């Protein structure tokens, strides 16, 4: 079991512990923050703030915990493509369902309220 750090065989980036520690600290603070801001009513801003904080937290995890910052670009492209498709899917589904919502019968659910 080799314990020494051999640069020639080394594949992948080694992340320093202080950096990992800094990231987890930031994640904790952001978690507290996202709960804290729900105490304030900012109308429709609330969900954007909550999601914004989640995106920052996610980015920290992806970039540092998941090594993407030092990884081959193709892996990042894979991630971004999948996220783009998620947005595409959500975007069209929201656009359409909002547009036909007025045609729906409010509260229609005969098996729930017969």
């Amino acid at each position, binding site marked *: 079991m080799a314990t020494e750090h051999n640069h020639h065989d080394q594949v992948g980036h080694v992340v320093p512990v202080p950096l990992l520690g800094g990231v987890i600290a930031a994640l904790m603070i952001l978690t507290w923050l996202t709960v804290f801001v729900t105490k304030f009513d900012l109308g429709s801003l609330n969900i954007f703030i909550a999601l914004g904080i989640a995106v920052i937290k996610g980015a920290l995890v992806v970039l540092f915990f998941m090594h993407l910052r030092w990884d081959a670009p193709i892996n990042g492209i894979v991630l971004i493509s999948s996220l783009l498709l998620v947005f595409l899917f959500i975007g069209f589904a929201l656009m359409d369902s909002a547009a*036909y919502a007025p*045609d*729906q*019968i409010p509260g*229609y*659910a005969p098996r729930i309220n017969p």
Partner: protein
Amino acid sequence: MIGFLSTTGAGEPSFWLPSQSSTIAQRVDSIWEFIFWLSVFFFALVVVLGARFALKYRAARGQGTVATTDHNTVLEVVWTVIPTLLVVVLFWIGFRTYIDMSTPPENAYEIQVTGQKWQWLFTYPNGYVDENLHAPVNTDVVLVMTSEDVIHSMFIPAFRTKQDVVPGRYSKLWFNATETGEFDIYCAEYCGTSHSDMGAKAIIHPEGEYEPWLKDASNLHGRFPPVEIGEKYYKRFGCKQCHSLDGGAGIGPTFKGLYGTMERLSGGGSVLVDENYIRESILNPQAKVTEGYSPVMPTYQGRFNDQDITAIIEFIKSVE
């Protein structure tokens, strides 16, 4: 061959399309025709070139290679741009007509439609229900449709129009018939066993004859003997889906020879099928279920009045 290429005719069905019987049908058909000839042109281009190359340059087995140019950017850009421009045009004309097809005109005559397994019911403004669509000629008519169970689709080929009918929401379809007569209505969205039998007729009345028809049709009890009314209800309100008239097995007992028999009940005991039992079975179907059948019949409380129920009883009596 001439028939094959003749795309549209005024009113009459052509080789490709059914009769052109609504205002929108003429517009749809002209787009159809445009795409048709465009397709014929490109198809001929590909086939003529392909066949010509295959024959002209055909060579015996074992040939070496040919060295010619393997790309030509100008050519490739040309055959990228031309299709692009053509499809932009296609999109635009198709979209414009579609918007007119999908936007019901204001003040259109409104008929409520319910789709259910497996029939259409058309409710007219005065409350009269019919299994066929009756409408006046040269009038904007809008159908406000919903489904009782699964998705159906209202399809009237002669009017070139179609719209899914979805449970839990209303969808609309409109037309303005340019011809009188009877036209087929189909269900175009697969809905189970009798999907292909879920048809109806669009009956377009001549100018001034629709209102009298509706008045006359609405007056059922004044026009028909009870047995015939019972038969209409039998067809119209979903009875025929479960109760056969010929003794055939179904979800419910057959009506053939039913009246006057003693039926065993699923909870034990038996009952004489008389006026009161039939009446109870219509209004409170779960009360006494015949042995061997599931308690699945919906109640018709509130949908039939006494006169209607009497008519149905008379009809059941008549089936022997």
